[in-house]
């Protein structure tokens, strides 16, 4: 059930909105989770676990620190799905 990167971005934006209240439009590929979106590590873990469930992938804890931007997460999820 591979999804397009655009679909993943939209799905991820919904998860971020649910967790932080940030507007979905502000969740763009070039945005940094910490610097731009002000998401702390606990919220990040919640987002990761919710993304695993929503996209049917596994994001290892070691990998999370490499997901600096929303785009990093979208590409990782996309690769994991294919």
């Amino acid at each position, binding site marked *: 059930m591979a999804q397009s990167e655009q679909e993943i971005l939209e799905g991820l934006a919904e998860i971020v909105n*649910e*967790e932080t*209240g940030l507007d979905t439009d502000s969740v763009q590929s070039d945005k940094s989770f910490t610097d731009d979106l002000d998401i702390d590590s*606990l*919220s990040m873990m919640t987002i990761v676990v919710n993304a*695993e469930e929503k996209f049917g992938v596994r994001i290892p804890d070691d990998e999370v620190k490499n997901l600096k931007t929303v785009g990093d997460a979208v590409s990782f999820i996309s690769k994991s799905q294919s």
Partner: protein
Amino acid sequence: MTAERRVVVTGLGATTPVGGNVPDTWDAILAGRSGARTMPYEWVEQYDLPVKFAATLKTPAEEVLSKVEVRRMDPSAQYALIAAREAWADAGSPEGDPERLAACIGTGIGGVWTLLSQWDNLREKGPRRVFPLAVPMLMPNASSAAVSLEIGARAGAHTPVSACASGLEAMGYAYDMIRNGRADIAVAGGTEGAVHALPIAGFAAMQALSTRNDDPERASRPYDTGRDGFVLGEGAAVVVLEEYEAAKARGAKIYAEVGGVGMSADSHHIAAPEPEGAGASRAMVEAVQRAGLTPKDIVHVNAHATSTPVGDVAESNAIRRAFGDDADGMPVSATKSMTGHLLGAAGALEGVLTILALHHRLAPATINLDDFDPAIKLDVVHGEARKLPAGDIAALNNSFGFGGHNVAVVFTSV
């Protein structure tokens, strides 16, 4: 040695089974409305609970808070935040040194919804699905921390835990902080969000709850011969306490003064009250003495009166033991007849209702009192609210908890 610091009440907040804020709650209390209702939750039938009703919030927290606030806080902390915001705004959001501002929010049980829902997650989905905020949400100090964050309180954030006396103990703690100079302003009260299958099953197992499932609104009936246990309630109540001179200087609206606080422990039984009321009466006497008053000055008592067969008589005995014949001149209100028993928030809510009774000079009527129990030796207000006298008056609020915790606070008119 400087003059003794006086402590006054300058803001009130509450979300309760009878109203989503203080004005609505007070209107409902004067109108004699019950907040008890059949629980809409599927688990009531799923577990075939022996008690199928509770005094749930009049205005659900989801209608007041943002989606993110609801996700990140246990219901107990959500309710505390709602009440604290109202109280803080009511006090005019006083500006001051954050290091002189405190938060004291008691709770009886803490984040029981979070604890049990995350336990379900662990068992059904595994450890990775346990919410990363599970621990800071379930800890009992989550509410005082949330309030401290909200108002920027840095003098201290404290969480007295003494079962059903917690909310009033928190007010007593805050009063002491201001009196002894640790703070100038404190936001204080209690919260509870424990309308959940487990606490209900536990209280039911000890036969503490009313089982009047066919008539929830008439189930909480303190002092009535037909009383058969308390009605579990939820919600929060919070006050803003301030050092008197500073409050006066900034032109704050002053509802009442905290005259004195008395506390004691029964050391008798983990759950049952000491039947002669020795400990409870000591707390009451101490509160009156510390207020520099005599029993004749007390014109109203908001009793703990949970509607249990044993507890109501024990408190009546304790009041008599404390004040003798002077108790004849103390009209007593049992507001749990309407609100149900909010556990760790009960003392705080009844503190707010005592303050309002002084402020409006009206002692609310106790509802569901159809057949007065002759074992109760008190002048219980029922039928309609009773006018309190003009001039300087004082009122007493009692709060007792499992474990033998006794707290009594005297409030005075200003």
